[in-house]
């Protein structure tokens, strides 16, 4: 603060923040890393290169990247709709979009099972598609099921980042461009996009981070290790396997997730920093 008087308040506040930060956020991380290396590097390497881990890593990456793609597309459309136009039910619509934000992952999983599971009402329809087109689509207990569940839990992440920024930006520039006869996509690309690109990237990063870490919803629709398991499920499986070694391995795989998470968050930080700099420039 720019106060001339030397004050104890900033020091106190910083102190409180640092303590809270270390106890609540840093310590758990340190414990994960410490536990994963407790029995030596060899076991660590063995854990993270095990076929099940690699398969889980693949499923996680597939699910996360599809979720990011789908939600980016959706987020842009939804943000455009909600910020550029006035219409009845806008409030309800934007609340509905936010639902996955606060929903219990248990409910998300349950919802998919009750829709696409064996007793789900959409199942006869899928069976019909499969028998007619000779396909073999399964929307639960399969990789597509994992993807759907991941999309569900990360659904509002990008629109939620975009909406406030686009709202703050106002519509004047877009309106002017439209008056001059610019086409919709051109307006988006030339006028809107430059303003939101950092926000969009930030949303994408958050969405990816959340997608990689999802557990509850995916747990309901994925049951086979080495095939449809994601990294988080692999951690759970290893932890529940009970042996002393496997618990260390569980922490090793966790540490992989932690490293991915921290890396993503650091990238996010760089993105934010650059965004601020371009703003200032």
């Amino acid at each position, binding site marked *: 603060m720019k106060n001339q008087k030397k004050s104890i308040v900033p020091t106190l506040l910083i102190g409180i923040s640092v303590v809270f930060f270390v106890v609540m956020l840093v310590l758990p991380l340190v414990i994960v890393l410490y536990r994963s290396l407790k029995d030596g590097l060899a076991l660590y390497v063995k854990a993270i290169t095990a076929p099940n881990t690699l398969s889980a890593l693949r499923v996680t990456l597939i699910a996360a990247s599809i979720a990011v793609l789908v939600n980016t597309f959706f987020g842009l459309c939804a943000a455009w709709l909600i910020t550029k136009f006035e219409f009845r039910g806008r409030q309800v619509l934007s609340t509905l979009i936010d639902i996955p934000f606060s929903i219990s992952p248990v409910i998300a999983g349950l919802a998919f099972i009750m829709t696409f599971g064996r007793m789900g009402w959409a199942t006869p329809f899928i069976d019909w598609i499969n028998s007619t087109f000779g396909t073999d689509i399964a929307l639960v207990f399969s990789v597509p099921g994992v993807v759907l569940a991941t999309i569900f839990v990360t659904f509002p992440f990008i629109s939620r980042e975009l909406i406030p920024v686009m709202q703050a930006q106002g519509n004047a520039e877009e309106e002017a461009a439209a008056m001059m006869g610019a086409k919709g996509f051109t307006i988006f690309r030339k006028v809107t996009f430059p303003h939101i690109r950092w926000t969009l990237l930030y949303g994408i990063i958050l969405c990816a981070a959340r997608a990689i870490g999802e557990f509850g919803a995916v747990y309901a629709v994925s*049951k086979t290790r080495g095939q449809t398991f994601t990294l988080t499920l692999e951690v759970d499986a290893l932890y529940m396997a*009970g042996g002393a070694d496997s618990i260390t391995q569980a922490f090793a795989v966790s540490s992989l997730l932690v490293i991915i998470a921290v890396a993503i968050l650091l990238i996010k930080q760089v993105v934010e920093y650059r965004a601020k700099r371009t703003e200032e420039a």
Partner: protein
Amino acid sequence: MKKKSVLAITVMLLTASLAACGGSSSASEDESSDVITITNVSYDPTREFYEAYNELFVEYYKEETGVDVEVVQSHGGSGSQARSVIEGSDADVVTLALAHDITLIEEEGLIDEGWIDEFDGNSSPYTSTITFLVRAGNEKDIQDWDDLIKEGVDVITPDPKSSGGACWNFLAAWYYADLTYDGDVDEIKAFVSALYNNVLVMDSGARGATTTFVENGQGDVLIAWENEALLALEEYPGEFEMITPSISIKAEPSVAIVDENVEENGTHEIAEAYLAYLYSDEAQRLAGENFYRPGNEEILSTFSDTFDLSVELCTIDDFGGWDQAYEDYFQDGAIFDEIYAY
């Protein structure tokens, strides 16, 4: 106006993404099309056993018929595993913690009635029992069930309303009290109630309870499956002791073919061979090595060093079978709710 193109884009995006991952997941099956895959949906503590057994079976089946088999395993809490089969996971066989979970699948019409008589010993190729795991030195001097209701003894056992395995624990305690108090229901309830009042942490599943006791150091005694307790002794040498109570229950993990799925997959023959081979001498010995009591008496007796064979065991039939027991003790509002009221 643009509705059609909108829908087209959206649907394309969705199907493309689903197809993308659908394709990659089925790739592994295409590589080796002459390998037949069956799925065994099992519960948590059998992981190590089936890992070894699958190897044994694959070799045996190749030798017998020349067919390559791959067995996919799925593990989790017994109840939630049964549910995943009901919900459509493609299990060819189920090997669960208790018959009741298989009955649930039967009620959905996926398994034919009478499955329990399809294989020997109530379709339980191996059994286990309920024992106590205490910390080395047994400071609280726990020897039998009545030591668990002493003041200051912290017990760890999972929630019978959420875990099938935990029901065995409850019933074993009940049976002990039944004999001790000569069938006086009020006294029995008071005993079991006192026991559950000593429960420090009630995990949602048996594996969770073991972890709480072993890894997080909670409680003085874990009421555990014998195979879990023996595994913990092996994994953490010198840290724990196993105490076998005077009376316990014969826990029968049941196996069954999921008839509807094997019909669809054309895997009935293999599924049947898979379960039948569990009764072979090799598999029975393997079960013993993995701390399950082999159903074969002769082979069981060779493991007398591992298992305390003198313990008096009741069976689920003493409670009128699983469906009756579930109704009497574990349903909402049944005895467990009554004794565990707050």
